[in-house]
C-alpha cells in the first residue's frame, strides 16, 4: 500500500513560540542570555520548530491522563511502518503513522532510557493544525519499552528507514515520515550512535559508580528486591557525584551544542542545493542491513544487566533538551553524515 503523505508538515516551523526555561537550573537561563546565542523569549526552541520536541507523543505522555515522565523531554518523530519487499512497502494506510520517541524515566539522566511507541490516526486536511485540540489527530500510546531491551539501527539511510528490534525479536521497519526534514533523520542517526557508543559525559567516566541495577540479577522471585531500600540509598548517593560531574562538563557540552546547531543551519542551507549523487561504498555499508552487526542470541545488550546510564532513583534536573543531547558531541560524525547525504 502506497503512502501519500500530506503536502504540508504538521508542525509549524518558526511559528511556535516556546519559552525554554530550565527551572531547576536557573544558571543555564542566565548562561544562555549571557551568550546571546539563543534568546529564550524571542526564538522558538529549534526542537519544537523541527517537530521533534513537545510534539504529539510528548503532549500525550505529559497529559494528566498519563502524567508520565513529566519533567523529562521527549525526542520524537513520526514514522511510517514498512515491510521489506522488492521495494519498501507501507503496511498501513497513509493516515496511520507511528509516533516513536525516547525520553528519560528521570530527568537527570544524561541519556534517554525509555522508548515510547504510539499509533497516530490522522484526519484529512489537518496537517498544520494538529496542535489545536479540536483538530488533533487520534494518538494512542501502545508501548513503553526500556531502551535496554531495544536495538535501534539505521537500516536504509537513503530511504530514512530505521530498524527497531526488541529483545523478544519483534522487528519493526520504520521510515521517517517524508514531512520531516533531513536533519531529523540525522538526529535519529545520532541517537543510534549514542545508544551504541554512549557519550563522553556518561558512565565511561570511572568516577561515576553504578551501584544499582534496575533488573535484579537474582530473579528467584517475582519481586526479588530484598535490598531495594539500601540500593536506593546508594543510588541517591551516586547521583550526587553524577550531578557534580554533569555540572562540571556542562559548559563544554553546551559549547558543542551551539556549535552543532550552527552546523545544522549550514547543513540546512546545503540541503536545499542537494543534488542526486551515487552512493559510494561507505554509504552502501551504512545503509545495508547486512553490514550492521546482528547477533541471533540476546547478548547484544548484555541482556538484562545494567544499562550504561540507567539508574532508578537519581535526582536532579536534566539540564539539556534531548535534541541538544543528540546534537552534542562527535562533530566529525556529523560532518561525515553531511558529506554522505549531499
Amino acid at each position, binding site marked *: 500500500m502506497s503512502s501519500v503523505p500530506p503536502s504540508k508538515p504538521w508542525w509549524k516551523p518558526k511559528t511556535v513560540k516556546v519559552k525554554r526555561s530550565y527551572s531547576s537550573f536557573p544558571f543555564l537561563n542566565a548562561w544562555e542570555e549571557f551568550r546571546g546565542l539563543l534568546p529564550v523569549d524571542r526564538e522558538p526552541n529549534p526542537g519544537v520548530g523541527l517537530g521533534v520536541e513537545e510534539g504529539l507523543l510528548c503532549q500525550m505522555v505529559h497529559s494528566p491522563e*498519563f502524567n508520565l515522565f513529566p519533567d523529562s523531554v521527549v525526542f520524537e518523530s513520526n514514522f511510517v511502518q514498512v515491510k521489506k519487499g522488492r521495494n519498501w512497502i507501507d503496511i498501513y494506510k497513509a493516515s496511520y503513522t507511528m509516533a516513536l520517541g525516547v525520553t528519560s524515566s528521570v530527568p537527570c539522566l544524561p541519556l534517554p532510557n525509555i522508548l515510547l511507541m504510539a499509533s497516530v490516526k490522522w484526519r484529512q486536511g489537518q496537517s498544520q493544525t494538529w496542535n489545536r485540540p479540536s483538530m488533533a489527530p487520534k494518538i494512542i500510546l501502545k508501548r513503553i*519499552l526500556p531502551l535496554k*531491551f531495544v536495538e535501534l539501527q539505521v537500516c536504509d539511510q537513503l530511504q530514512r528507514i530505521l530498524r527497531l528490534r526488541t529483545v523478544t525479536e519483534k522487528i519493526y521497519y520504520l521510515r521517517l515520515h517524508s514531512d520531516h526534514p533531513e536533519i531529523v533523520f540525522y538526529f535519529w542517526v545520532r541517537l543510534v550512535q549514542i545508544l551504541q557508543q554512549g557519550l563522553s559525559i556518561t558512565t565511561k567516566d570511572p568516577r561515576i559508580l553504578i551501584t544499582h541495577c534496575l*533488573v535484579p540479577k537474582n530473579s528467584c522471585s*517475582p*519481586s*526479588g528486591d530484598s535490598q531495594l531500600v539500601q540500593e536506593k540509598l546508594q543510588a541517591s548517593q551516586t547521583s550526587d557525584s553524577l550531578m557534580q560531574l554533569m555540572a562540571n562538563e556542562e559548559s563544554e557540552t553546551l559549547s558543542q551544542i551551539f556549535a552543532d546547531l550552527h552546523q545544522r543551519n549550514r547543513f540546512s542551507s546545503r540541503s536545499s542545493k542537494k543534488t542526486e549523487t551515487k552512493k559510494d561504498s561507505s554509504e552502501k555499508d551504512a545503509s545495508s542491513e547486512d553490514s550492521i552487526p546482528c547477533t541471533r542470541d540476546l547478548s547484544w545488550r548484555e541482556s538484562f544487566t545494567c544499562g550504561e546510564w540507567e539508574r532508578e532513583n537519581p535526582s536532579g534536573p536534566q539540564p539539556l533538551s534531548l535534541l541538544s543531547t543528540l546534537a552534542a558531541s562527535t562533530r566529525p560524525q556529523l560532518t561525515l553524515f553531511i558529506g554522505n547525504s549531499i
Partner: protein
Amino acid sequence: MAYAYLFKYIIIGDTGVGKSCLLLQFTDKRFQPVHDLTIGVEFGARMITIDGKQIKLQIWDTAGQESFRSITRSYYRGAAGALLVYDITRRDTFNHLTTWLEDARQHSNSNMVIMLIGNKSDLESRREVKKEEGEAFAREHGLIFMETSAKTASNVEEAFINTAKEIYEKIQEGVFDINNEANGIKIGPQHAATNATHAGNQGGQQAGGGCC
C-alpha cells in the same frame, strides 16, 4: 470520547498466565493463542458504563518475566486497580501470589482495589489449583476473586468491570480522594467543572454526582 472518570489499572502476575490475553479479550474481544513476551508496558483502554457514567479504563499490561520488569515497579504508582493473575494449571504461579501482592502493596496506594484472577479456567482437565484455594487466598488478603478464561472470554468482562465497580463504590464512600491523582483516578472533562464546585467537599455523592 468524554468520560466521567478514568481509572488506571495494572495487570500483574507471573509470565505466561495470560495477562496480555486478558487485556486483548477485554479491549478487542479476541483471543490470540501466541503472544509475544511483554517487555516494559503495553497499553489498552476501554470505556465502560457504571451507574450511568462513562468510565475510561486505562490498562497497563506489564511484563511478567522478571528479566523484563525493568522499572515496572514504578508503574504501580497511581493505579486505582490491579488484576493479579495466576494460571490455574500452574501451581507455581499461585505460589508466587504472595510475593506479587507484597510488591503491589509496597509500591501502590493503600486503597488500590485488587482483583485476584485464576485464568485459563477452560483448561479444567489440567487444573492444579482448586477454585476454593483461590477464594481462600482472596478472602485472607482482602481481594476480590474470579476465575476467567481469556480464551472463551468467560468472566473477562466481569473481572474488569467488577473491579471498576469496587473502585466506583470507594469513590462514592469517600475512600478515594479523587483530587489526588496518585490514587489512579482522574476526573474526566465533563466532570471537572462539577468537581471544582465541590472542591473541599469530596467523597460521597458529590464525587459521583455529575452534571448529567
